């Protein structure tokens, strides 16, 4: 019998119970509505293979949990269907370097 609270679309992975991030198994278009852990979630942006989105509300300061492990902390409130990445999540250890000129590491280099 299918458990209605864990029912999840085939295009999506929730890697462990208790995770608050869903992972796309293929590229999924913006506006797509999917069932994740029994909840209907509409994607607000396109999500590429391997990338993450929220399927429930994640408050600013809350840990992101993937495969049962904390992978960072939300820097703002995140709504169901929101793409989760460096714009709304940061490391608990060392910030991620990008080629964005505003990045701390780039500034230090000059």
């Amino acid at each position, binding site marked *: 019998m299918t458990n209605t609270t864990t029912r999840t679309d085939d295009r999506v992975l929730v890697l462990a119970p208790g995770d608050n991030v869903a992972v796309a198994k293929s590229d999924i278009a913006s506006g797509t509505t999917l069932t994740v852990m029994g909840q209907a979630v509409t994607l607000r942006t396109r999500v590429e293979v391997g990338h993450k989105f929220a399927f429930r509300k994640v408050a600013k300061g809350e840990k992101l949990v*993937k495969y049962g*492990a904390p992978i960072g902390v939300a820097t703002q409130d995140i709504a169901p269907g929101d793409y989760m990445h460096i714009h709304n999540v940061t490391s608990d250890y*060392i910030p*991620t370097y990008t080629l964005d000129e505003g990045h701390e*590491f780039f500034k230090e280099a000059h």
Partner: protein
Amino acid sequence: MINAYLRPDGRKGIRNTIVVAYLVECAHHVSREIVFPYREQGVHLIGFPGCFPNVYSHRMMERLCTHPNVGAALLVSLGCEGFNKGKLQETIRKSGRPVKLIEIQGTGGTRKTIAEGKAWIEQTLKQLEDAPRTPMSVDELVVGTICGGSDATSGLTANPAMGRAFDFLVEKDATCIFEETGELIGMEHWMAARAENPVLGEEIVKTVAKAAKYYAAYGHASIGPGNADGGLTTIEEKSLGAYAKSGQSVISGIIKPGDVPIRGGLYLLDVVPDGEPRFGFPNISDNAEIAELIACGSHVILFSTGRGSVVGSAISPVIKVCANPHTYKRMSDDMDVDAGRILEGRATLDEVGREIYDLIMRVSNGEQTKSEDLGHQEFILTYKSFEPIGPACFPSAA
């Protein structure tokens, strides 16, 4: 059973390579010119660029020049550099391998040194044709693993599939080595729980704490712009994926670059220098880690990639396992295994793990990997500083 090459020191190799090693950057061009005509005949270029001596890099060069895949070594010195060339030559000679040392200054410059080096290569290639063969079983095999150009698919497909292959190998008492302690940040307590004993578990936690401190001192984690473009948000998330390469076996010990495990099992290679951070980032790119895995005896390297790395290595063949189905379609010429099939529902983790295991056996019996066939023989060695491992790190040695 593998049909291996038997070296005079008793070690067994799966390739019959001659290394040409420059002992300072000033001898690099001359060495490359010596190698060039023979680059498709198993003659590989390695070397150390620095003029100042370094215990770590000396030990690395000794291990690499006496690696079981290596049948002979040509050392190329400018003449005035700090590298202890006589000591290196003596170590190789004692291993029973043919070795020659040429000094560019004493030989009379570029042209004469290249001619003398090539003459030695011609003669040594003929000599190595008669290298004795011997049966080698899986429990004598050493396999290292690394990920490079990772993306968010790496931890879902290629890394856990390589972890399965590691589990199959460890079951047969092969030696498996995983590394990148800077990419195991956040995983230390999970790893500690898998240690052979609690004391080793404590050492694992300390090793990862050392890596986190080291990278923090440079203000940069082991995660790059391409990783972020590929959906990896934080170093913890990258670590979670990288950790999957280790499989699920018991962790038998911690080793440092150049330590060759004395019995089979799963080992964590600590690649982050000891002491205060100096000499820069622990590994400036993937090939620095591959060179260290090879110095620990790895006959074969498993390399997972999501974004699409093309590298191979000098000395040991590199098997490329592609995590991302889009990347595989774009770069299949460079990829040995298509692990993205797992996401597409066309294969299971166990099936791809078994495919990797079978490929390791075929490559050990001479089948060329994609990167070997394409002529990739990348190599990097720079400065580092290590303390020897403590007894708690290597319970089986006690």
